[in-house]
Structures are given as structure tokens and as C-alpha cells.
């Protein structure tokens, strides 16, 4: 669908001007509208909001906040400001626009909306119904609004939304680059996200569930009132009534949950502001509540380390009691081992004494060729001397040899095992005690350091203390809200489980009833349809968000600086968009530079168009703004490469310059130049013209 015609009369700087847009082709879909500052770019953009959506569109116009646009008076006053200063009082202000389907839009018709606002002879907005009139033509046929019993303006707006797109979506497709910040802020509200749901079809699903539910009430009544109903029917109605009550409870719990979530967000945002103020005031990282929590935590670590040390000592009580004796026992065992070894050697020698003597003095003497002839008494003395000499080999005992056995029951291999075990006990006790003591020392040091920081935080100036107290209070409130949220979530889980059980029971009764007749069979099917649509709503919501995040990320990364590559955009519920960078750190998008925010807005629009496959024209006022030389061609390329029916770029001479135009020449379908010729003539639209090079 493309904007084929826009006629502005008595509209800001336009006295009477018409833009006739050519039908775009697949290759050429970009329209450049050049205008110097104050010549009519923003007036063009605003005319789309107000021309399409009237009073509802005002909330998206620069300078008009939502709360200011609720009253008819502020709407009239706004239109008074948008009216051309030199307008003839007898002439209305008119916005007349037509959107035309392209060959890619099937089964769709031209939609023309003509909105007129009337003024009195003082050029002040007329009061009441005389102020505004709107005509909606679909396929050239004027839609009647007078005989429906509804407010004709409201009905016309509904028809515009049905025939084109919901008003919520408008800021995502028609926006001022300078207002990208506002678009991002609005993302924090459910507005744009709801718009995505509308376009993705989830709103229709919700509406269908509601309609089927109403149909069921009527169908049940038609099938027979309570008087005629069988016992089973009465049972069914009782269950349905119970389910209605349960649904009310669920709705109330969900509303409470939402309210609390908003409250929490507000407190969180207040807390962040206070924390920033606290840092600015010199509180640094001295977040008192956090520090106190850290001290408490560290104190617990000290207590745990003390307990661990005590447990180590008591579990090693026996070991410890012998540890002092271990060296003495080890020494004694070693001495007794030496004694045992000495005694063994000595015994071995003495056991062989007779063999040694027999070798030294063979018997009988006649067989001894060396000493056989000595006198027998001399021979006896020599024998005694050799025997004594042999005994003296192992006398005295070696040094460190025990004199006797105190631990004589532990000998040989057993003694060696006892020595090894004693060594292990000695080493193990030391290591465990050493580790526990080390942990205790570290924990005590940490407590001391944190206490010192806490003391420092208590000595900050009065103003800082006040901020800190407020922060503490907010933290407490947030904890309380989180507790309540948790409690509601539990309640919701339980209610939903009860609802599920009840639905199964109702389904069973309906299956029984369905056997009774065609009406009951229809009711049974419609009940199932109703439940299926409710399930579908629940399941489509996260899918819609995920898809939107995926596609926004892809477009944003394509346009933005390379430092965002590998990142991911998150659209948290009730929060402003965030980007998670490749290294896992997260940053709020509203903290980024103006042009990065603008890139996000463009990426968001492209993503919305992509996932919903709605072929809505994209109209951007000053898309490049103060972008640097790398961003400029990338952004323009993203806009021109994307498969949109029509992209209208409103720009001034220093923005989309001739160099940049050359880069996208192949995609440009048409150009306009808007020139302001003074207050009498106003802005004049010159087709097929652009700024002089």
C-alpha cells in the first residue's frame, strides 16, 4: 500500500498544496521530499497522524503529550495552532489523503480519508460537532456513519484502523528522526508492543475469544433455559458460573500483578536516579544497604570459618592428642628398630661363631697344618680370644640404639606401618588446621575492610545521608513488592490449574450433552474454540516478542556501528529497550547517542513491517540527522534495500546530499522540492525537483 495523494489546505505553511505520488515498482520505491527548515517537512508528517487518526493521532505529534490530548478542548486548541495563519475564516482546514494498494496487495481497495476542521469568523475552532467532519471512502464508496447510533467520528476512526492499520502503529511508520528518543520511551509503555500484537494478529485472536464467549451465552440461552434444562445442563451451568468466578479472580490477580510490576518499575527507576545522585554526591560505590548486606554476609563467612576450624580441631581430637607424642614415639620406634637390627646382626655372628672357630682352628689339632703343633692350653686361649673378638664386633651397640624394648610388641613390618601412619597423621592435622585458619583469617580481613567502608559511608555529608536513607527505604519497599509479586504469581498458578481442571470437567459434560442435539454439539465445539483461542493468546505473546527482538536486532546491527555486531536487542515488558553486547554486557538503548537511537527507531519500523508483512508506507522526517559519514550511506542503504512499498524521506539540503542521492539513485522513484514563498503564498510543492547541487 502506498500514499498516492496528499492534499493539504490551510495546513500550517501550506495554503493549498497537493503531492501526487507515483505507483512504486519493486525496484524504485523511494520518494525524496526536500524542504529547508521551516518549509513544511514536519507539517507533512503531522498531517499523516491527524489526517488518518484525528484526535487520537495528536498524541504522536511533537509537543503534545498523551495526557494533554484527552480533552476535546486541547485538540481544538492544537488544530488552531496547526491552521494556517492567513487562512480565510470561511474556509476549513483540510487534510485529504489516499492510500492505494500495489499489485502485491490482494483484495484491497483504495482508502481515502478527508478530514475537515471548521473555524468561526475569528478563525477560532468551532465548538461541538460543528468542529470536525470526516469522510472515509473505501474503493471509491463513501462509508456511511450517520445511522449506526455511534459517534460518527469514533466510527470513522475505527474504520480507518480496520481498513489500514491501528493508530498505535503509526509512530513506528511515520516518525521524525529527531523524535526517535520519544519512540524508544514509548516502547517502555505497552503502546508500540501492543501495536505489534495487533499487527501480528494476536489482538484479533483475543477479540475472537471474547466474541465466542458472548456467542456461547446467547447459544446456551437459546438452547433452553434453566427450567427446561436437564440435570446435566444445570450441572454444566454451575460449572460455567464457577469458571466465570475463577476467570474474574484470575483477571483481578493479573491486574494486581501488573499494577505491582509498574509500581516496582517506578520504584526501580527512582532508585536508579537516587543511586546516580548518591554517586554524584560523593557516595561513590558506598551503597549503604548493599554494604551492610555485604558486612552481614562477610560476618556469616567468619562465623562459618570459625565453626569449620572448631569442627576440624574436634574431629581431629584424638589425632591432635597424639600429635605431640608422635615425634617421641617415632624416635623410640627408630631406636628400637636399630636395636632390633643390631641384635639380629649380633645373633647372626654369634650363631656362626663355632663355624668361624672351626675354620680358624680346625679340630682335631692334627688336621691343622698351621697351629696343630701348639700346646693344647695355648690353643684353648687362642680359641677364647677369637671368640671374644667375634663378640666385640657388635659391642658397644650403635648410636641411637635403644637399650631395651619399650614397644617390643611392634616389630618388623608392623613397626614400619605404624611409622608411616604416624607420619600421615602428623602431616594431615597440620594441613587441615592450616587451611581452616587461613579461611578464618581471610574472612576476618574481609569483614574489617567492609566495616571500614561502611564507616566511611556513614561519615558522608548530610545530603548524601538523606539520599542513602531514601535508597534504603526504596530497597525495603522493593523487597516487599517482590514478595507480594511472588505471592500473586503463586496464586495465579493455582487459579490457572483449577481453571484447567474445571475446563476438562466442562468439556466432559459438553461431550455428553453434544450427543443430545445439534445446538448442544455446536455449543460444545464453540466452548473448545473459546478455550483454544485463549490458549493461543497466551502462547503467541512471547513468540511475538521474540520474533520482534530477532528481527529488530538484525536490522539494527546492519545499520549501527560494528561494536554492536553479535549483540541482541531486548524489549523487556514495561521497560525501555536494551542491547546485550557480544561480551554479555547490557546497556539501555536510551543511554546511547542520538543517532544510535534513531537507528533503532528505523530498525524497529523495518522489523515491524517484516514480521507482520504489512505493506505500510514508511515516512521519515530527517532520518540521518547528525549521523557520521559511515552511518549515512549504511542507513540509506537499509531503507532502500528493504522490500517496502514506499519509503518517503523528508530531508533538508545538508542531510541527504547529492553524493548520497547518487548512492541510492537506482531506488529513487520520485523527488519533490517544497519551497516557501512567504506568508501569502505559503509552501509550494514542485514535483520532480530536488535541491540544486
Amino acid at each position, binding site marked *: 500500500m502506498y500514499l498516492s495523494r496528499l492534499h493539504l489546505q490551510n495546513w500550517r505553511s501550506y495554503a493549498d498544496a497537493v503531492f501526487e505520488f507515483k505507483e512504486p515498482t519493486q525496484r524504485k520505491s523511494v520518494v525524496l521530499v526536500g524542504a529547508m527548515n521551516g518549509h513544511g517537512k514536519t507539517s507533512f508528517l503531522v498531517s499523516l497522524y491527524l489526517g488518518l487518526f484525528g484526535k487520537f493521532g495528536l498524541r504522536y505529534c511533537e509537543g503534545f503529550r498523551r495526557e494533554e490530548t484527552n480533552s476535546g478542548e486541547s485538540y481544538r486548541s492544537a488544530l488552531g495552532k496547526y491552521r494556517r495563519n492567513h487562512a480565510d475564516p470561511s474556509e476549513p482546514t483540510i487534510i485529504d489523503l489516499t492510500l492505494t494498494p500495489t499489485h502485491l496487495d490482494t483484495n484491497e481497495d483504495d482508502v481515502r480519508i478527508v478530514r475537515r476542521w471548521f473555524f468561526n469568523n475569528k478563525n477560532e475552532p468551532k465548538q461541538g460537532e460543528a468542529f470536525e467532519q470526516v469522510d472515509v471512502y473505501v474503493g471509491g464508496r463513501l462509508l456511511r456513519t450517520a445511522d449506526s447510533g455511534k459517534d460518527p467520528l469514533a466510527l470513522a476512526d475505527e474504520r480507518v484502523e480496520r481498513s489500514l492499520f491501528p493508530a498505535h502503529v503509526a509512530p513506528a511508520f511515520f516518525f521524525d528522526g529527531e523524535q526517535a528518543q520519544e519512540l524508544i520511551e514509548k516502547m517502555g509503555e505497552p503502546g508500540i508492543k501492543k501495536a505489534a500484537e495487533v499487527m501480528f494478529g494476536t489482538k484479533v*485472536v483475543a477479540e475472537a475469544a471474547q466474541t465466542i464467549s458472548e456467542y456461547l451465552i446467547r447459544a446456551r440461552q437459546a438452547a433452553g433455559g434453566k427450567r427446561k434444562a436437564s440435570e446435566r445442563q444445570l450441572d454444566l451451568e454451575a460449572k460455567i458460573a464457577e469458571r466465570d468466578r475463577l476467570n474474574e479472580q484470575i483477571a483481578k490477580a493479573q491486574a494486581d500483578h501488573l499494577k505491582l510490576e509498574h509500581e516496582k518499575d517506578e520504584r526501580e527507576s527512582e532508585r536508579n536516579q537516587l543511586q546516580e545522585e548518591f554517586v554524584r554526591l560523593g557516595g561513590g560505590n558506598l551503597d549503604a544497604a548493599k554494604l551492610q548486606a555485604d558486612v552481614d554476609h562477610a560476618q556469616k563467612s567468619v562465623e562459618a570459618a570459625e565453626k569449620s576450624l572448631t569442627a576440624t580441631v574436634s574431629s581431629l581430637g584424638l589425632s591432635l592428642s597424639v600429635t605431640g607424642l608422635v615425634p617421641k614415639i617415632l624416635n623410640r620406634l627408630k631406636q628400637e628398630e636399630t636395636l632390633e637390627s643390631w641384635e639380629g646382626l649380633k645373633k647372626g655372628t654369634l650363631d656362626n661363631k663355632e663355624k668361624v672357630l672351626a675354620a680358624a682352628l680346625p679340630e682335631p689339632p692334627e688336621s691343622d697344618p698351621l697351629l696343630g703343633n701348639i700346646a693344647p692350653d695355648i690353643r684353648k686361649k687362642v680359641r677364647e680370644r677369637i671368640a671374644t673378638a667375634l663378640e666385640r664386633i657388635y659391642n658397644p651397640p650403635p648410636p641411637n640404639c635403644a637399650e631395651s624394648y619399650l614397644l617390643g610388641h611392634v616389630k618388623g613390618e608392623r613397626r614400619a606401618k605404624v611409622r608411616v601412619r604416624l607420619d600421615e597423621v602428623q602431616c594431615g592435622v597440620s594441613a587441615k588446621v592450616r587451611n581452616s585458619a587461613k579461611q578464618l583469617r581471610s574472612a576476618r580481613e574481609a569483614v574489617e575492610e567492609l566495616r571500614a567502608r561502611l564507616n566511611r559511608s556513614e561519615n558522608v555529608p548530610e545530603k548524601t545521608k538523606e539520599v542513602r536513607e531514601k535508597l534504603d527505604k526504596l530497597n525495603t519497599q522493593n523487597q516487599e513488592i517482590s514478595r507480594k509479586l511472588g505471592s500473586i504469581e503463586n496464586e495465579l498458578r493455582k487459579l490457572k490449574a483449577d481453571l484447567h481442571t474445571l475446563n476438562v470437567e466442562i468439556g466432559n459434560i459438553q461431550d455428553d450433552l453434544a450427543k443430545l442435539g445439534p445446538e448442544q454439539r455446536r455449543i460444545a465445539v464453540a466452548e*473448545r474454540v473459546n*478455550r483454544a483461542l485463549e490458549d493461543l493468546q497466551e502462547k503467541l505473546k512471547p513468540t511475538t516478542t521474540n520474533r520482534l527482538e530477532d528481527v529488530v536486532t538484525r536490522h539494527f546491527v546492519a545499520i549501527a556501528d560494528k561494536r554492536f555486531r553479535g549483540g541482541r536487542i531486548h524489549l523487556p515488558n514495561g521497560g525501555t529497550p536494551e542491547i546485550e553486547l557480544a561480551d554479555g554486557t547490557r546497556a539501555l538503548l536510551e543511554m546511547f547517542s542520538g543517532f544510535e537511537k534513531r537507528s533503532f527507531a528505523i530498525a524497529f519500523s523495518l522489523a515491524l513491517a517484516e514480521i507482520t508483512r504489512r505493506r505500510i508506507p514508511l515516512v521519515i522526517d530527517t532520518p540521518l540527522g547528525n549521523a557520521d559519514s559511515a552511518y549515512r550511506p549504511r542507513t540509506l542503504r537499509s531503507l532502500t534495500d528493504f522490500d517496502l512499498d514506499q519509503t518517503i524521506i523528508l530531508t533538508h539540503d545538508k542531510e541527504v546530499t547529492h553524493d548520497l542521492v547518487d548512492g541510492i539513485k537506482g531506488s529513487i522513484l520520485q523527488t519533490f522540492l517544497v519551497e516557501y514563498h512567504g506568508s501569502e503564498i505559503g509552501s509550494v510543492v514542485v514535483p520532480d525537483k530536488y535541491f540544486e547541487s
Partner: protein
Amino acid sequence: MKVPPCFDDPETRKIIRQICDEHSLDVDLLKDMCEIVGKYSGSGRRFGLDEEIAGAVDRFLSRSN
């Protein structure tokens, strides 16, 4: 009135099919319901709505038989 885009999207189509299986319905019936509701949405008109819903259910019942 076009079918909501979630019925054309490959990912959400799977979810819809799964839900239809769970409730012993078919995707066409849900599509029909969304189309009917979309047709009457915003018009403030209810005349004929119940008949269209009943008609969609009857078509489903004859498909199922």
C-alpha cells in the same frame, strides 16, 4: 478481512496446529472464527454474527464426520 498474520507465519502456525490438536479442532475453524470476528469488529453491528459462527461450527462438524 484477511486472516491474521500469525496464521501465515511458519513458527506460529506450528503453535496453532498444536493447540488445535489439543482441543480436537482444526486450523480452518480458528481461521474462520478470526475472519468472522474481524469482519464484524469495529462496526458495532451484531446482526448475522451468531449465524456465521454457527455456520463455521457446522462446516467443521461436517468436515469431522
